[in-house]
């Protein structure tokens, strides 16, 4: 029993530790629901800090000194700009329910791909033919989409913002 409690406490601590933070990149509105016309809870200023609770489409549910609600994902810089080498955990893990699980750690013997590497590169016919052998036909691509229940739909190209 005691042990279960300890594990529980540890799990709670881990969850708190792995909660992701965000910083407002621009002035935006904190809303009650994840919709542009939902009730306004507060207005964020650039640099406001929030805790990210969850994600839905283009919206993040956040909590901070200005209250709890939803803000557009693209107005928030997630995480701290201090990750190094390892893949980032956080928002995406959160989105896929993997919060707090195995961080990817860079392996040794890393092959870089610098400007110099690219300039010095020599044509590799064998690898190219191998790459070409994996091509998918248009028909097979449609089958693959159908297996994933992906349906094509009409969406217009976005003009460049003014």
């Amino acid at each position, binding site marked *: 029993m005691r042990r279960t409690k300890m594990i529980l406490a540890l799990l709670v601590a881990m969850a708190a530790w792995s909660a992701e933070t965000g910083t407002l990149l621009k002035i935006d509105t904190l809303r009650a629901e994840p919709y542009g016309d939902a009730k306004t809870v507060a207005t964020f200023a650039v640099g406001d800090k929030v805790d990210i609770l969850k994600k839905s489409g283009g919206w993040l549910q956040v909590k901070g000194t200005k209250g709890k609600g939803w803000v557009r994902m*693209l107005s928030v810089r997630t995480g701290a700009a201090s990750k190094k080498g390892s893949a980032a955990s956080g928002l995406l893990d959160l989105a896929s329910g993997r919060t707090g699980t195995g961080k990817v750690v860079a392996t040794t013997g890393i092959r870089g*791909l610098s400007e110099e590497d690219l300039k010095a590169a020599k044509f590799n016919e064998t690898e*190219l033919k191998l790459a070409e052998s*994996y091509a*998918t036909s*248009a028909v097979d691509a449609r089958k693959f989409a159908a297996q994933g229940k992906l349906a*094509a739909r009409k969406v217009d*190209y*976005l003009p*460049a913002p003014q």
Partner: protein
Amino acid sequence: MNTIMKRLGMAALVLACGAVRGQTLDEILKKAVEQKVQQQTGNDISGLLTGVSQDEEIAIGRQIAGDLLGAAPLVKDAKLQKYVNNVGRWVAAQSERPDLPWHFGVIDSMDINAFAAPGGYIFVTRGLYRLLTNEAQLAGVLGHEIGHVIKQHHLKLLQQSRMIEMGGKLVTKQAGDNESVQKVIGSGAEVAARSLDKGAEFEADRIGVVLGARAGYEPYALPEVLQLLGHFTANDSSVALLFKTHPLPDARLDKLGLAMGDTFDRIKGLPLDKRFYKLK
């Protein structure tokens, strides 16, 4: 290009003969060339480069792809490579060039980057692939690269640096290392290390979002990847080339946010995290 020059030349002659006061022939010619260049580099979908045939485009891309694979070979995982081709081909099918011979691959480098070569050769590094957690994000990344291909951004870059001799002199045999094509693209895969202008990157981001959404995926998947890229510091060597050749993630998110607005508030899509092929 020859025909364009002929046409421009004739237009200039007509103008010059037609007593255009106060303008020298040079000025008239310059203006005509500028207009033509504007037309060619403008944003309209029909603005494919004239003077480079699709076969040449593919031959150039194939040479760059072979060079790139010389720098970093494929990850030796046939299921992964097939999966990436399935996703990529489905996304490319939503573009206005569905019938290019599209090829996709994951290359064995821990650098975080992705590359597009003319004619539809697209590669993602193992380092970038490992950051992704669902198929929609992969579709968004591939969609960005497909954007470069359909807008011929790299082909235009080569043309601007006068590396492409316009007028159909390229040999387009499909087999093997192609010397004359290599001359066009410079040393190795250096074109893959060159920066496009920022506008081209922002445009590819918008195209990536739209193609992913057209394909049925969650439209905010590409912005998720950009947010992930924002977690890396600029002095991290694994993102050095990516950050050198692209606008920084914050700027890309800002521009993409402005372009997306509330358009996608009610367009949901699938993330497909269960089907996403995980790299060991």
